[in-house]
């Protein structure tokens, strides 16, 4: 058993996610930039805040990390959770400060929120609905904390929120799930989601 690997590629909210996973019951948690640890892990969490391009470059900057993630998540099928930009990186590409290639695990692109003159603010900042659009064992209806200016548009959307129109709140397929909101900052709702992730057997 290899425990949970929380990928350290310089993302600023790493410790908040680590704290929340521990509070959700994670006992064997490794905060790691070591691809070998990823290859041993039973669960993988990819956090992320900041700009898509910078995060994608930072992840690629860890030697062997993309290959390890591809193998462990895509081929061997261990449960994977992406959070915020960590979720957005699952897409084909992001259009934040130029176009940047993502992991390409879920068909879609990450584009700037555009409320079209509505009085909705960007960044989309604060508590908002998580409304499931199809059943998923990890996603329950509730309220979570969002903090982002860019959002995913594409396939495998499993929950949306509303910010002058529907905005992707979660994506998922098979053993992969990504959430735009911050479970580590969403008090009881967020910790409960992390608890379900720790138990998840996709």
């Amino acid at each position, binding site marked *: 058993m290899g425990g949970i690997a929380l990928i350290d590629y310089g993302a*600023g*909210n790493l*410790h*908040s996610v680590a*704290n*929340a996973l521990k*509070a959700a019951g994670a006992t064997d948690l490794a905060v790691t930039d070591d691809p070998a640890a990823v290859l041993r892990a039973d669960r993988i969490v990819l956090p992320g*805040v*900041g*700009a898509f391009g910078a995060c994608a470059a930072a992840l690629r900057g860890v030697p062997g990390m993309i290959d390890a993630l591809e193998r462990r998540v895509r081929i061997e099928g261990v449960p994977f959770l992406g959070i915020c930009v960590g979720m957005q990186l699952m897409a084909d590409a992001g259009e934040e400060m130029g176009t940047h290639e993502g992991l390409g695990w879920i068909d879609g692109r990450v584009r700037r929120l555009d409320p079209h003159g509505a*009085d*909705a*603010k*960007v*960044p*989309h*900042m*604060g*508590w*908002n*609905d998580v409304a499931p659009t199809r059943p998923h064992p990890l996603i329950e209806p*509730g*309220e979570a*904390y*969002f*903090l*982002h*200016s860019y959002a995913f548009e594409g396939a495998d959307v499993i929950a949306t929120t*509303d*910010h*002058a129109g529907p905005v992707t709140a979660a994506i998922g397929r098979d053993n992969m799930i990504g959430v735009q909101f*911050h479970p*580590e*900052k*969403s*008090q*009881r709702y*967020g*910790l409960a989601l992390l608890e379900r992730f720790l138990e998840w057997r996709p």
Partner: protein
Amino acid sequence: MTVRARVIPCLDVANGRVVKGVNFVDLIDAGDPVEQARAYDAAGADELCFLDITASHEARGTILDVVRRTAEVCFMPLTVGGGVRSAEDARALLLAGADKVAVNSAAVTRPEVVADIAERFGSQCCVASIDARRVGDGRWEVSTHGGRRETGIDAVAHALRLADLGAGELLVTSMDRDGTKSGYDLDLIRAIADRTTVPVVASGGVGGLDDLVAGIRDGHASAVLAASIFHFGQASIADAHAALAAAGIAVRKPAGDKG
């Protein structure tokens, strides 16, 4: 529904201790910011704000320890302001566990610090904090040093410039109203909120729950910040949410209500 109006209690912290303390809950150590943060987390605050008013540069490290310990036990967004002069200062706070960093005086003398922080860590974590004083009808100037020093800079133009430079949120404090309990300067808040796409947090002058409602409804703020009405037990976070909800403003559901 849409994104909820946020209620943000703010704690003044000096040398690692809370200055204006909470006295409405049974705290073992009422001066410990971490314990007060826990109380607000349990009470369902939408976010928390620490304002570090440590005077000496040598004691700055204490806020990092406070933030680190808070992030271990509180699972809500935390904004930290006070004494942030550079992207390196911001980085230290973010690594310690802050979600957003508020820049104030440094952005008066060097607005580009906002761009430095936004480019390195993203706009979402960069809060521009503006202290303003009314100088005429519909005109405000940026003030510094707790409202004691005038700068001659137009506060609305300054706020909008900081948003253009990459601030993801504007925290707007009326220094005329701060501590007076006479309500937010709604004209100031609205003058900024109506001219920018980024969220505005209203601050300075809350005397009661009606002021919170007015900040959102009339000031067009996205969030309302208050200190003493919460710290001294005049109102709870639940009271604040209920007052906003009664005015038709979208807020989070009460804790325990799953509907």
